[in-house]
């Protein structure tokens, strides 16, 4: 293959006219993947704040061992049920769908997704679902946890349970439509010169995630349909007294919801591969192993669901699920070690994006270790349904996914808006988030092991001290979010110009203006032979050519070589 080091074919020199995005553009139907991506992100972030507010109320209640903030135990139950459902279905999943939408066509040098209209439809299913979901406050919100185990969810949960199930149904359809679009886009729209093995790892992560979504989400739809029928049509799929079985729900629900954990974390891992390589100026270590481990996690992820049922599954069935659950740690470990290998010998530029990526590694590994511990049945028996599990999945979904979302915001905000975020505020945000997060969720490990079950508004007085630590740290974590919100608002107005390629990155989304024009690129961009080929003259020549085409902003965050780079070689 001829090596090409010119980012853009033929065409104009100089930047094309930069589009100016108005807030009102976000409220209208658009088939532009960039606008849809922003619509996803803004909507998801709104629900992040909603879910976060509920988390703060939960922690207020748990400052004392007795019920004092809430008026009843059942009101407390609605709170954590809605918190979980909101964060999972209305924040993390749509947030990554947003980044996927915005970035995937740009990374592939494409002008849009494969099915733009379908893309818009997938997004516009979310607002009505969100409204339906929030409307459950008006009737009686669900109070059976996000896991909605019957018979609690069929006998003792309000009509909001039905509304929430319907909303989850609609969100599932949205996810499936989006995932099909991603798969087809990756399959068909890669530019010449980019085989599967030359794709950015974020694209690999989106591919693995989308395959999981398409395969797993129909099981959620099936389970929800049975639940809704049991609630409104008098059926008894889960009613043991009429021949149904409550374990049927648990099996089908977790057959979706365990892969869903990977749906929520794989895109974050994709983000990490981009950010770590670019900001430490070093090729990703073990590209193929990282790409393949995403696929491995995707496949193995379908074989571990019953480890969520180690206290309800019939005992002889537990062993096989313990073995698969242990083995899924291996591909995850490969990723973590590959990322550490990427940092080793690099030139680490500790800006907001890299700080949050390092924070991801630091916190996610704790969730990984507690995950391996949970796979061991005898230990799981002790901590199942306790704060140990609450800690575990927050280390994975906050320490993992949310840290990755923050890293992605700091990394791609310049591309999306054309403005840099304030780095000093980014550091404040990181420190508050990192410390607030650690002291919120680490003590939960001890609480769970010592005997505090999850989902309780009342707890034993001896647990109060740690719960206070957790609550105060959680308030710090809650406040830290507003540092980011403030940074975004201020930077949108007064942020420094970003230029096309502030980070001197090799992937194609940086080979165009920030924000990109409606057609993404002027002419067809030509990908560099290796998306992570940092540290060679050839790569620097390619990057210099981008700088030459689009110009460099005055205080570009990533230093440029002082001497002007030699004119790029035209191939070899």
């Amino acid at each position: 293959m001829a090596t090409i080091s010119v980012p853009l074919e033929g065409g104009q020199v100089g930047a094309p006219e930069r589009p100016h995005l108005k807030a009102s553009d976000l409220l209208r139907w658009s088939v532009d993947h960039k606008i849809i991506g922003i619509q996803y992100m803004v909507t998801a972030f709104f629900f992040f704040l909603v879910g976060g507010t509920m988390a703060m109320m939960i922690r207020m209640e748990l400052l004392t061992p007795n019920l004092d903030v809430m008026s009843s135990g059942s009101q407390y139950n609605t709170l954590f049920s809605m918190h979980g459902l909101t964060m999972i279905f209305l924040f993390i999943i749509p947030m990554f769908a947003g980044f996927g939408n915005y970035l995937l066509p740009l990374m592939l040098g494409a002008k849009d997704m494969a099915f733009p209209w379908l893309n818009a439809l997938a997004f516009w299913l979310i607002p009505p679902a969100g409204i339906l979901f929030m409307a459950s406050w008006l009737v009686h919100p669900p109070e059976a946890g996000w896991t909605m185990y019957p018979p609690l969810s069929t006998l003792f949960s309000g009509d909001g349970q039905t509304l929430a199930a319907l909303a989850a149904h609609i969100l599932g359809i949205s996810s499936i439509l989006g995932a099909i679009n991603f798969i087809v886009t990756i399959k068909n729209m890669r530019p010449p010169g980019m085989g599967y093995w030359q794709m950015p790892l974020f694209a690999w992560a989106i591919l693995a995630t989308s395959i999981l979504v398409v395969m797993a989400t129909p099981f959620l739809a099936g389970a929800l349909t049975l639940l809704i029928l049991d609630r409104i049509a008098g059926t008894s799929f889960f009613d043991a007294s009429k021949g149904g079985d409550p374990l049927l729900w648990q099996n089908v629900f977790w057959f979706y919801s365990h892969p869903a954990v990977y749906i929520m974390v794989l895109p974050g891992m994709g983000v990490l591969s981009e950010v770590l390589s670019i900001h430490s100026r070093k090729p990703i270590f073990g590209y193929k192993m990282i790409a393949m481990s995403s696929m491995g996690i995707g496949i193995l992820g379908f074989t571990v669901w019953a480890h969520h049922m180690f206290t309800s599954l019939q005992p002889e069935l537990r062993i096989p699920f313990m073995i698969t659950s242990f083995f899924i740690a291996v591909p995850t470990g490969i990723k973590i070690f590959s990322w550490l290998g990427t940092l080793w010998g690099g030139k680490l530029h500790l800006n907001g994006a890299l700080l949050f990526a390092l924070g991801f590694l630091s916190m996610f590994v704790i969730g990984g270790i507690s995950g391996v511990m949970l796979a061991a049945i005898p230990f799981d028996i002790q901590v199942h349904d306790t704060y140990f599990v609450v800690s575990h999945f927050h280390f994975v979904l906050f320490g993992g996914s949310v840290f990755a979302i923050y890293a992605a915001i700091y990394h791609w905000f310049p591309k999306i808006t054309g403005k840099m975020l304030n780095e000093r505020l980014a550091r404040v945000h990181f420190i508050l988030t990192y410390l607030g997060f650690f002291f919120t969720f680490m003590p939960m490990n001890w609480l769970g092991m010592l005997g505090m079950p999850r989902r309780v508004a009342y707890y034993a007085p001896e647990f109060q001290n740690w719960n206070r630590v957790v609550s105060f740290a959680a308030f710090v974590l809650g406040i830290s979010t507003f540092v980011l919100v403030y940074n975004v608002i201020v930077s949108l107005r007064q942020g420094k110009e970003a230029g096309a390629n502030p980070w001197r990155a090799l992937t194609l989304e940086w080979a165009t203006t920030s924000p990109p024009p409606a057609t993404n690129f002027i002419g067809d961009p030509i990908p560099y032979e290796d998306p992570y080929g940092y540290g060679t003259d050839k790569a620097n020549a390619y990057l210099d050519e981008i700088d030459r085409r689009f110009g460099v902003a005055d205080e570009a965050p990533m230093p440029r070589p002082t001497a002007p780079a030699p004119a790029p070689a035209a191939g070899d």
Partner: protein
Amino acid sequence: MNSTKLSLSTVIIIAVVGVVLVAGGFLISSATPQLLPAQASAESIQVDELVRILLIIGGAIFLLVQGMLAFSVWRFRAKSGDSSDGLHIHGNTTLEIVWTAIPAVIVVVLAVLSWQVWNQLQTPKENEVVVHVDGRRFNWAFTYDAPINLMPEQIDVNSLPENVKVDVQDDGSLTITSPELHTYIGQSVLLQMKPQDVIHALWIPAFRIKQDLIPGRETSIRFTAVEVPGETYPAEYPVRCAELCGANHGLMVSKVIVHKDEASFISDWLVPMMDKVIHPPTDPVLAGQAILTSGVYPCPTCHVETNLGWSPASPVGPSLNGVGDRAAGGRSTATGLSAKDYIYQSVHEPAAFVVPGFQPLMPQLNIPECQALAIVAYLCTQTDSGTPACTVDDYAAKCGSSAPAAEATSEATAEATSGITSEATVEATSVPASEATVEATSAPAEAATQEATAEATSGS
């Protein structure tokens, strides 16, 4: 491929780092006893050994990753204005094989160890005693079959009053129910569990055991209590519900009481419990107080009752302080019932009349007739003046053990027809009248047993 030859210094560094990590893992794992409750069962000792191994390995990996991160940030941080790139390295096959193989070996080892421990936990023990567990929103009931021949004085099963007799099994053992789980050091117990409404999970943190109670099935879990050094006996450990079961899930707490040995288990708890069952108090007020304080019913979850020390965290039911006065006053006017009938209705059909300002939250408890009458008798006495607002005069006749023979016979029949509990109906109808007469006359009526918790036993 730059690692075909490792220099000596590299090998030494790797060895030193490895030793430090493993030592760190051991150090972290030494916190195991502080991270877990007392080791009060044989299972807890086996599980904790596994936890220790998990913490050694997990701790070492934790230190490795955090150490690598900290070292990288310190060592490889770009100087301000440094525009150079890092090393152009794409990977290292040897290294990648190593960090795939080592975790794979570790998880295989952990899987084998966990499997072994799990098998030990699962193995049936000799002479296991079966205890039946009922989980219901939001309390527990533990039911034992106690051999009646443990009683110091010989009890003639046939001479027991009707309402006690329902608790006697065919093999001569007596069914007793307790809101707490009792066991003794060295006793192997098999819990056989069923929920009455939704899924619950029985969790005894000090025993490291947990098992869901699932509607439509009977699930089980086993444990053997062991002596905890420095503990005073009888020792108490919490029993919690771990699966979300509704509004007061967090209050679904009981305790397991571990007695020193079998002798004290029998003499301090089992025999007194059986005695209470066999000799129910004749005074309905005392009987009612005993039932209410036994914890068999979840009343203290919602009702304030200062005389019994009830002060729930969320008193969603009307206070029971002075309930006798209100029953005889406003409530009687509102419902047209006598004070006694009003309280009886409130206990039996809570939804029939809901006190203004409250929600119809109280469940239908299906309390057996004699227990309900005793509870009514107790609540009648809850007045400001101390003078009972009402009395249950027919309690002795219906439920007491000293009732005259003829009356007892007719009452037994009456109970049978009114169908208090299905068990009672079967028992009562299958007993020939003449026999019932004999039993009733020969039944002892002892004042000494009046403090007893009486019929707390028949439970659900």
